[in-house]
């Protein structure tokens, strides 16, 4: 497949870098201001070198990407809330041109799911978005394989930053502020970690899951969301007295979405440590399935994007 990649952050760059391994060509790559396009496949190494060196990615504007001859648009621009722009318009343009779209951007899938599906219905192209939920973990394809109707709920830990902070608080008996500063030093937490610690990032993923289970109907404002900022180290100590720990757990069902700090058995599968993620998919006919792995990171998330590309039918 010929890929056009919008967004040259960790995920977009990793998709470009790994595409060759999966036998795909990258014909266009754009960041927010510039683009490089080559119908014969762009020279990834030198483009990425320019990007890392803070130079222009290429001589063209991002607009040029849509004129390139591509099969799949990889939407890897940053997640935005509300109208999910400009990601939504990118997807719309590609579908209207009868191309496939693979999203790593959570915004359009969480906030404008029905519109995406309507556009897809009118297009020869399809949309896939495995990378938006749980990075490298095959969550959506597992649901797809079990058929969404047979999945009754999805629960789990889908934010590595919050999980890292809670794990360190429990292990070291430290308070939130202290561990957050440490996580920022280690590069695990962003300078502004609000979306991670207030539950918004996890909630977006569970909104996407509810949308998949119920075939639409949900956006972030339908989710009940609590963060971990008000959890002191002492709460984790008390939980441990009872063989429990606290994790930021999300739950998605056809009825709604809930994200908040919850008590879980200390040695249970949902008590993953560090930045690891886990999902528990509860099925009607096959009990619970658990899948754990790296929920973020450039190459990890890129593998989900490229698996999606591999599942697309030829155009």
């Amino acid at each position, binding site marked *: 497949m010929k890929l056009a990649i919008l967004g040259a952050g960790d995920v977009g760059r990793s998709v470009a870098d790994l595409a060759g391994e999966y036998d795909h060509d990258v014909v266009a790559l754009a960041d927010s201001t510039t683009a490089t396009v080559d119908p014969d496949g762009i020279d990834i190494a030198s483009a990425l070198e320019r990007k890392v060196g803070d130079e222009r990615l290429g001589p063209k504007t991002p607009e040029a990407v849509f004129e390139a001859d591509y099969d799949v648009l990889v939407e890897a621009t940053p997640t935005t809330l509300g109208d999910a722009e400009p990601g939504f318009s990118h997807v719309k343009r590609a579908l209207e041109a009868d191309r496939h779209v693979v999203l790593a951007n959570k915004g359009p899938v969480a906030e404008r799911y029905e519109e995406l599906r309507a556009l897809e219905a009118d297009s020869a192209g399809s949309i896939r978005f495995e990378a938006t939920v749980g990075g490298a973990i095959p969550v959506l394809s597992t649901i797809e394989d079990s058929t969404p109707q047979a999945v009754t709920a999805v629960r789990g830990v889908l934010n590595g930053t919050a999980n890292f902070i809670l794990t360190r608080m429990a292990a070291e008996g430290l308070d939130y502020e202290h561990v957050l500063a440490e996580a920022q030093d280690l590069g695990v937490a962003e300078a502004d970690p609000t979306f991670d610690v207030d539950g918004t990032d996890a909630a977006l993923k569970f909104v996407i899951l509810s949308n998949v289970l119920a075939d639409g109907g949900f956006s972030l404002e339908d989710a009940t969301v609590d963060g971990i900022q*008000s959890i*002191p180290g002492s709460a984790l100590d008390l939980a441990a007295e009872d063989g429990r720990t606290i994790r930021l757990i999300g739950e998605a069902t056809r009825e709604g979405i809930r994200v908040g700090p919850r008590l879980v*058995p200390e040695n249970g599968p*949902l008590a993953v440590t560090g930045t690891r993620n886990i999902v528990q998919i509860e*099925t009607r006919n096959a009990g619970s399935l658990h899948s754990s792995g790296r929920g973020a990171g450039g190459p990890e998330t890129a593998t989900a994007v490229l698996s999606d590309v591999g599942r697309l039918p030829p155009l």
Partner: protein
Amino acid sequence: MSDESAETGDAETDGGVRAFTVRLELVDEPGELLRALAPISDSGGNLLSIHHERGNMTPRGHIPVEVDLECPPDRFDGIVDALRDAGVNVIQAGAEHYGEEISVVLVGNLVETDLSNTLSRIEDEASAVVRDLSLAAPNGTEAVSSVRIRLAIDSGQTDAALAAVRSIGSDKDLTIVEPLLGGDSP
């Protein structure tokens, strides 16, 4: 036979476990306690705590022992049966006596917001009994502190009880860390 052991042997611990209490009475003989506990672990229960009330005799002259354990809810009846099969006198575990137990952690200005009032409201409004309480106030009672309470609730009333606790927490501006209960699917 293999079906049977799959049924009772390998307890699932996928987050769908709950805490239960059984009250036993034991004959005061060496090895009795161990003998009484074996059927629990053999049937997939995880022992949480044992209150061996030495010196406190039941009317029949036996020693009361209270055992807290956790297991998937559908294994509990099997554990009670296994205890009885082993000849252990189970004095409280029948469906009419045992309820469900859940732990909840409350965080906030617990002292300022009158902890004992909070607890009595939970007992009234959540129809629960506070079985156990543990408070941590590392920065003094004026600061944010945490309390873990274990609640005994009538079977099937967990959701209602948690909703009541949630509403009391929101009245008093407390953060409620609820347990994640297992799913409803078998």
